[in-house]
């Protein structure tokens, strides 16, 4: 093993060693949230994944292999970048970015897919399936599948396939089969439904490589643990850079994987505020948004009890965001729990606010962020003005904006 000098991932890095007392219970519950609202037929598969993961996360060989891929393939550790010119618009507060945009495939999604692809091998399965909205998780999954020689099928809403044709081409080039989903609203939520239908049919040889911290137990825990490296690194790096912990950590929230990834290592640091930014789309009052924690109510979606955008009857409402990655009417159960316990604070950022922050970071710092991450950037600008010039804010720059150039060209008339 090479290139692991000086840093080998430990079981504590992966799972937080239970020190914060916030792991889900045996039934996958975070308080009242989470659980396993799935057909009986899938329970044995979920048990199998949970049991294998419990072994893997304390297996030094697995940890070394994951660590090796994170370093030599994904490009970890990612650096911190302080952005003083951008921060001038934040009342002078210090803003520091965690640069997940610099990873292979350009977003934090690679961390989870590498972990789960290794887990798939341990499970003795040869095929992975995944859902994708914007195509980022699909591309990341297709990448890991190509790397590890797994058959790969990606479910993607037909509307999204059209909107994100470039990512469809990337997935195909990587050897994946992309299945357009024509049911329902033909977007991410329908792609998830269809992936579950595939899984229940082909579960004997297939792992469902779930892309966010939602879904039935153990996915919220597994995806969080594989994304947790973001916060583990950032916490150490902030201490090196500033000599102390940040006053606040900011991240965008769709399903919530990048946010929980950077939040989790800080949950025990009570003085560190945790702020999640959802998509307010055209504005909360327009009804065209994806602000699940801000505006949703408690329900059951995609196997998990959590906040859901739904009507009075419990029918899911189609969400909207200019950012496809945040365009989801559910949210991970651990975020629901962080909200209800008050440990996390969640806000909504409009399309316009996010696009302003997107352009501002490009012009002031020479970094084009993903539109998803731009919601966190817009949030940090507001937060900085509230907390004052003495404050330091750590922002998860979860992905880069290359994929968003089509949207930006239209929005800014470039």
């Amino acid at each position, binding site marked *: 093993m090479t290139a692991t000098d000086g840093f080998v991932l430990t079981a504590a890095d992966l799972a937080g060693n239970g020190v914060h007392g916030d792991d889900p219970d045996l*039934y996958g519950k975070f308080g009242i949230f989470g*659980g*396993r*609202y*799935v*057909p*009986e*037929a*899938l*329970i*044995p*598969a979920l048990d199998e994944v949970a049991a294998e993961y419990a072994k893997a996360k304390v297996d030094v060989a697995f940890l070394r292999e994951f660590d090796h891929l994170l370093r030599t393939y994904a490009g970890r550790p990612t650096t911190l970048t302080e952005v003083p010119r951008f921060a001038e618009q934040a009342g002078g507060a210090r803003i520091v970015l965690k640069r997940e945009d610099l990873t292979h495939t350009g977003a934090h999604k690679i961390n989870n897919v590498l972990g789960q692809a290794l887990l798939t091998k341990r499970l003795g399965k040869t095929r992975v399936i995944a859902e994708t909205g914007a195509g980022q998780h699909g591309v990341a999954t297709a990448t890991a599948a190509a790397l590890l020689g797994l058959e790969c099928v990606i479910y993607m809403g037909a509307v999204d396939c059209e909107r994100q044709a470039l990512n469809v081409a990337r997935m195909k080039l990587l050897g994946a089969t992309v299945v357009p989903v024509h*049911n*329902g609203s033909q977007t991410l*939520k*329908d792609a998830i*439904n269809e992936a*579950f*239908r595939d899984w*229940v*049919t082909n*579960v*004997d040889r297939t792992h469902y490589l779930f892309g966010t911290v939602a879904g039935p137990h153990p996915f919220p825990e597994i995806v969080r643990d594989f994304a947790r490296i973001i916060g583990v690194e950032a916490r150490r790096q902030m201490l090196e850079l500033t000599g102390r912990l940040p006053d606040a950590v900011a991240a965008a929230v769709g399903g919530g994987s990048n946010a929980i990834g950077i939040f989790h290592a800080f949950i025990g640091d009570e003085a560190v505020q945790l702020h999640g930014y959802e998509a307010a789309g055209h504005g909360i009052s327009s009804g065209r948004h994806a602000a699940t924690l801000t505006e949703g109510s*408690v*329900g*059951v*979606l*995609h*196997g998990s*009890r959590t906040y*859901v955008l*739904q009507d*009075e*009857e*419990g*029918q*899911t409402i189609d969400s909207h965001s200019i950012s496809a990655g945040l365009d989801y009417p559910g949210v991970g159960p651990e975020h629901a729990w962080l909200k209800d316990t008050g440990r996390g604070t969640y806000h909504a950022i409009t399309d316009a606010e996010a696009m302003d922050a997107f352009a501002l970071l490009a012009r002031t710092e020479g970094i084009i962020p993903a539109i998803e991450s731009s919601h966190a950037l817009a949030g940090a600008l507001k937060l900085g003005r509230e907390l004052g010039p003495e404050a330091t804010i750590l922002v998860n720059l979860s992905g880069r904006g290359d994929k968003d150039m089509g949207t930006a060209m239209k929005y800014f008339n470039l």
Partner: protein
Amino acid sequence: MTDSLEEFLIARRGTGRPLLVPYVTAGVTPGWTDVVHAYADAGADAVELGFPFSDPMLDGVTIQEASDRAIAAGTTVRGILEEVATLDVDVPLIAMTYSNLVVQQSAAEFCAALTASGLRGLIVPDSPLEEVGELADAAAAEGLDLVLLAAPSSSRARLREITERSRGFVYAVTRMGTTGERGEIPEQAARLGRELKELTDRPVLFGFGVSNQAQAAELAGHADGVVVASALMRKLLDGARPRELGEYVASIRRALGQGVR
């Protein structure tokens, strides 16, 4: 008629007759309640009513299409229950829906509303043993039979617990997959039927992919009867009238046999 769903089905089974439970998505057409009457008149032993949900994870394309159509037509739980309350059929009615509709108020309120409208059973396919506790208690308190599903992948220990905790009947899923019509019956169905019959005296009914008369008869031979859903809903979506759907149910009834009445 005050028998519970389970008492009713056991009495019917006692006549030597394989049980037949056809399905209709409530609200799928303005005259959907006529379909319920047609099923009952055609020899159904109970009728399953789907309460449509926007994200039916366990359903294939046919039931999804029916659900979408019903939701688009403005179907609500309250609206369904009001229509159910006016139904005059001599067999038990069973609600089938997903967890999210159940938890909108509380499990207790949901179950109370069902029984107040005359429903006698409830099936919630995304509420496995792990999550069913509160709902099972609420249903029991209302005298509503909560039917649990058993799958080919279920362990023996889980099958035992499912047969112990299910009420009304045990819903045996014929295959690993979604609802929807299929060409043939998988071998695992026979094994599952045999295991369940060893574990319980409760009626065991097969569902998922029961696509024609011959399949219904074959599956009924491995258990106590069948649920037929997508095959009927496909016909309905393609324009079949209640009378034609009733005739189809009658043809399945004939294939299964009448028992001694």
